[in-house]
């Protein structure tokens, strides 16, 4: 089994690296090589003219006179040295822009992920095992309601209640961790619906398995059956979804950061896209896709720890083998 597990791990890591590389190539060529040179455009932008001296430096730095392939190699060499280029609007190094924005977004995304887990978990357990059928019914209806409510609406409602009515948090000032809570809650409510739904399904399915009857016949209490056995059996699809959700939280930060006026990656992205700041866009896309690929990798590597059958039998038997 360990041999199978090792080759499984090695393959998944190789796939992840490949995905990140291919994304870079694709995005670079779309932004810089396809017709419609972003740098030239930005220099000639009538609303935001760049002084001739600065323009010259930018043109030299990006080697727009060279062929596409040359530009790509130059960019790649600089990337290896940690040089992500310069913003076309502010002239600041892209790396420092990103580094400034990351902590804001990271605080938001990780708090939101935590909230998501707690909300989805509570709803699912209540929907599957609450003693009162009324509570079960309400809990079952919640994921659908969460899905149907757009996150900007949830955001506005939360602001209305906690900032304007109760005055607990400022809607504008940055108050450290306190300011993270509302946007994180808005995000969590938006993404916890599908997770709760999948977990409810998983719990109900696992609870109907014959092994639960046997556990009960052995004299185990309900709580131990649910928490010790059913939950783990129901968890795999939920873990997948939780991983994908982390990506969604990063992407979703564009909307939430705008509403809650936070200057994280989402804000940076929104600015960059509006100003057609290609180097920043490239860096943001690479950041998001790397995080995405890594989360998927981590969730895939967690599976065998939850379910030993996954590493042992990664490919389902074909119909031929399954018969007899």
């Amino acid at each position: 089994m360990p041999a199978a597990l090792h080759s499984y791990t090695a393959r998944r890591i190789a796939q992840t690296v490949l995905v990140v590389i291919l994304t870079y190539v694709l995005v670079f060529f779309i932004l810089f090589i396809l017709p419609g040179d972003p740098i030239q455009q930005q220099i000639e932008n009538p609303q935001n003219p760049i002084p001739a001296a600065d323009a010259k430096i930018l043109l030299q730095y990006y080697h727009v006179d060279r062929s596409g392939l040359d530009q790509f190699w130059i960019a790649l060499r600089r990337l290896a040295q940690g040089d992500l280029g310069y913003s076309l609007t502010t002239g600041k190094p892209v790396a420092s822009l990103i580094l400034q924005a990351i902590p804001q977004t990271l605080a938001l995304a990780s708090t939101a992920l935590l909230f998501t887990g707690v909300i989805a978990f509570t709803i699912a357990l209540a929907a599957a095992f609450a003693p009162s059928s009324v509570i079960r019914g309400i809990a079952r209806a919640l994921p659908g309601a969460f899905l149907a409510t757009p996150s900007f609406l949830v955001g506005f409602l939360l602001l209305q209640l906690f900032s304007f009515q109760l005055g607990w948090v400022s809607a504008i000032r940055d108050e450290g961790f306190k300011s993270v809570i509302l946007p994180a809650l808005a995000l969590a409510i938006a993404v916890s619906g599908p997770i709760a739904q999948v977990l409810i399904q998983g719990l109900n399915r696992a609870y109907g398995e014959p092994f639960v009857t046997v556990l009960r016949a052995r004299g185990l209490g309900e709580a131990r059956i649910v928490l010790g056995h059913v939950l783990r059996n129901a968890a795999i699809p939920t873990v997948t979804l939780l991983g994908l959700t982390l990506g969604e939280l990063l992407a979703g930060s564009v909307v939430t950061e705008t509403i809650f006026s936070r200057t994280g990656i989402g804000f940076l992205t929104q600015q960059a896209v509006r100003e057609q700041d290609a180097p920043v866009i490239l860096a943001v896309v690479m950041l998001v896709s790397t995080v995405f690929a890594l989360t998927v990798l981590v969730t895939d590597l967690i599976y065998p720890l939850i379910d030993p059958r996954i590493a042992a039998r990664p490919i389902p038997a074909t119909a031929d083998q399954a018969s007899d």
Partner: protein
Amino acid sequence: MDNDESTRLNLPVLSVRDLAVVYGGRRDRLDSPALHGVSFDIAAGETLALVGQSGSGKSTLALAAAGLLPANGRIVHGEVHLRGERVTHHDRRRWQKLRGKVLGFIPQDPLGSLDPLQRVGHQLAQSLVLHGIARRSEAREQAIGLFDRVGIREPRLRFDAYPHELSGGQLQRVLIAIAVAARPSLLVADEPTSALDVTVQRRILDLIEDLQDELSLSLLLITHDLALAKERSHRLVVLNHGAVRETGDTATVMSAPRDSYTVQLLADAPALSPDKFDALRHARGPLAAVPAIEIRDLTKTFRNRWTGQAATALDKVGFTVTRGAVHALVGESGSGKTTAARIVAGLSSFDSGSVTVAGRTLPLHPPTTNHHARTLQLVYQNALAALDPKFTIAEALAEPLRIHRLGNAAQRHDSIRATLEQVGLPESILERRPRDLSGGQRQRVAIARALLLQPELLVLDEPTSALDVTVQARLVELLMELKQRNGLTYLFISHDLSLVRQIADEITVLSTGRVVETGPADRILSSPSHSYTADLLAAVPGRGSFRSAA
């Protein structure tokens, strides 16, 4: 101690009085209870067999007696006493104290009955600790000892195995170890071996019997298999439609049944009437030695795409099916019998060897379209899976005729009607869908669909093993009648040797992809030349005598 006391007081270990169980909360369900008026006792050390078909209420009875009824089931009348304690309306908490300690439960499907994510040893150790049999530090050693006792090979190694790494028989041993871990007085076994191969089945039942003697256990054995009940139980309760039809000493009930339903059940059990079709066979006379299917040196390997390991499913398999015969292909799961059937039917490729079906030599890789569908048809074990759920029966039956462009609409309708009559189905089912039919009816539809193209050969892959005894008996009678009338040849795949003994003219025994022996049924059944065949035959229940009273 409690055990001895109840023996001394001569109390039954389990006593069920006038029990009625209803599913669903609505009052109108009271008219159609799942069980009504059921009474019986089990004495210490005794085995009571609960016999009945699916839907007879035997599993409901087992669950009610073990306090494991699903949430929508409840006891509306009568009493259940477990070792003198009235448990009729115990809630979960009070049941929990009895489970494991007083009552052990052995489930039907060993593969799904252990938590797939936990090591089997831990699951047993957990029970030992839970019931205070072992302290946490000594649980592992005790569990290993218990594994050894229930016949798990290399128990120390198996302790750390996950359920998917063990075979069905080994898993059932684990479950038995868990059931007896806390020394209960009563075991409830719900069809404990019906998912297992015959040879494994016998060894598991032997193990349960040994443990029974050793731990003076009572056993409530739920089974649909009368032959098994005959061999393994002291007393018998026959259930039908939720009511007791007959109860008494196993030997008495078997030799002199009083109830008409019991008589029917006994007549339908293939193991108890092996020569049912002998007259039919004699009337037909000997078969001419014309081969319908000839297989030589057939080899097929499956390659695991992940590990690259090759597994040989068939290894130089060779046998001949005589035209007009019922040729039984016998073997345990994994023996390659289904693979062989799929190759004969032109559905699977093979690596080498030759396969000739009705004079046509099959290519190594079958074409996507099955060109000899009109010569040979395949009938699957699971008719529900073989029929498109969205098709009405009329559409399902018309499809093969449409594909082969046979006749116009009126002619098709006529031949569908004629075939339905042959398989004993009313025309009224034509507008229904597979899900609305019973298992027996569905299998009849599948057979009708196969017959519509008027094939010469039918490959029947365990066609009756998902059906109840009486339904199976009617279907086998139908198959034999159709064979007679239409001059068909059957390649009949089965693991059920008692059924094979009833119907087969020729037998091929497969084991791990090799032919163990092949030849006329009479010779193989009366004097098998291979020890594997002898083992298979010896494992068939119902051959031995009655179990003597304890």
